[in-house]
């Protein structure tokens, strides 16, 4: 069973490695969006530190949402998606593999660049540490929820925007707990509560989203 | 609750704008929904009748 999961994962990672441009676009989008806010709001360090967590989290959310609509799109276009769904292996694993691949390709780079942006927002070192931890837990949630959105909007016109419209309301708890964790550190009240709630939300999403996405895939492919 | 006069009733203790603003919008939404529903049902019937006549002719 896990062989199929690893096979899907390896396939997607090699595909992404060949088209290095894709995940760089999402990365630069993240940097650009985050850098626009100081231009709009002003360079005052105290203010930037206050809005920093929220801005970075929203920018990370939008950056990985950007790439979600293509989660199944390429395979759907050349028909390989249908073969994979019709294969004896459960579709849930296919969706899980795809979401995991999306997280590795688009989620992890956000983590690597986040400290640089954290410095840009005058966040202290411990806050940046918690920011990384919260993003580490938060981004897979988005890849899983995004899997549902991508499966539902497979092949629809305006799929990308529609996907964002469907998924963002579901992502609110993760945003609140994630940004709240960094705020907790800044305010000195500690971030354990937020991070544990974020982790709980991740586990729930892990339990729910792949099955619904698999069902959505079957619905979309009929 | 006895209202001294009708003008007191509309004034609603100084909060007339907010109370009646809320009730007015609620009434408007409900009426709009009912009217749209009735009109929609009528249109559906007429459209289906026309489509049937085309199919049969």
């Amino acid at each position, binding site marked *: 069973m896990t062989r199929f999961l690893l096979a899907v994962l390896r396939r997607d990672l090699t595909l992404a490695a060949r088209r290095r441009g894709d995940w760089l676009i999402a990365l630069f989008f993240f940097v650009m969006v985050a850098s626009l806010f100081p231009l709009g709001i002003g360079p005052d360090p105290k203010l930037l530190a206050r809005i920093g967590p929220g801005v970075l989290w929203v920018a990370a959310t939008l950056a990985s949402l950007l790439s979600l609509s293509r989660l199944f799109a390429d395979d759907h276009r050349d028909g390989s998606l249908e073969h994979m769904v019709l294969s004896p292996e459960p579709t849930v694993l296919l969706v899980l593999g795809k979401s995991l691949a999306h997280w590795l390709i688009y989620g992890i780079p956000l983590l690597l660049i986040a400290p640089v942006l954290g410095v840009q927002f005058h966040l202290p070192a411990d806050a940046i540490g918690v920011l990384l931890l919260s993003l580490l837990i938060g981004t897979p949630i988005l890849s899983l*929820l995004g899997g*549902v959105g991508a499966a*539902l*909007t497979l092949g*629809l*016109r*305006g*799929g990308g925007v*529609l996907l964002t*419209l*469907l998924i*963002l*309301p*579901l992502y*609110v*708890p993760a945003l*609140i*707990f994630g940004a*709240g964790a960094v*705020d907790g550190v800044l305010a000195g009240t500690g971030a354990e509560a937020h991070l544990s*709630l974020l982790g709980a*939300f991740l586990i*729930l999403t892990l339990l*729910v*989203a792949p099955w*619904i996405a698999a*069902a*959505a895939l079957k*619905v*979309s492919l*009929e | *609750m006895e*209202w001294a006069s009708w003008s007191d*009733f509309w004034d*609603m*203790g*100084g*909060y007339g704008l*907010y*109370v009646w*603003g*809320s*009730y007015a*919008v*609620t009434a408007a*939404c*409900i009426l709009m*929904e*009912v009217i749209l*529903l009735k009109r*929609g*049902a009528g249109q*559906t*019937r007429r459209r*289906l*009748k026309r*489509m*049937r006549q085309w199919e049969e002719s």
Partner: protein
Amino acid sequence: MNLYTYASPATFYHLAGRLIPWFAWSAGILTLVGLYIGFFVAPTDFQQSEAYRVIFIHVPAAWMGMFIYLVMAFWGAIGLAFNTRLSFMMVRALAPTGAIFTFIALWTGALWGKPMWGAWWVWDARLTSTLILLFLYIGIMALWAAIDDVKRGDRAGALLALIGAINVPIIYFSVKWWNTLHQGASVSLTKAPTMATIMLTGMLIMAFAAWFYSIAVALARVRAIILERERHTEWVKDILER
């Protein structure tokens, strides 16, 4: 009478036709009674004087907004499990009414907040959660609009309602959590006015009125959907002839 008799659109169409007047009339009567109690029986609130009377539509609307979303998820699940077309039609029939109630809850909440909290929009936990609930409704309706194939649209909407319903309690919890943390000094969270029993009864009567109204409207809308989708059947032809 087995489980599926009323699952067939034909029988349900006539059943709904008979039920609508009952629900519509009872909703109308309950509304009149509720409003009478609300304005002519319920006393002035010592804290909010007369402004609290918005509660008689704000709370029922908020309840209905959330309740209808959960009912949609329920019918969606039934439709997915038993493959009954009528359940999907009911999901489609409920969505607009749920969205309208959620909008009414937001509007009346904002208007009620102005005299109490001094601002047209306050990031109060309940208002914010209701706002996100409205986004969920808009998401489902946008999905239906984007999918032309009826069968796929039904199932996709049902799945979205399902994952939405699972998340609604979490969204409400996380927003309340977020609100208590960022308790701004300016926002003094006035809890609902201590409910004199007469106020509560007025509100409950209005809640039932809203519930019966929703049933009547949903049944009426589902009848139109049934006609639309079953137009090639004999019985619809007879109805159209009449």
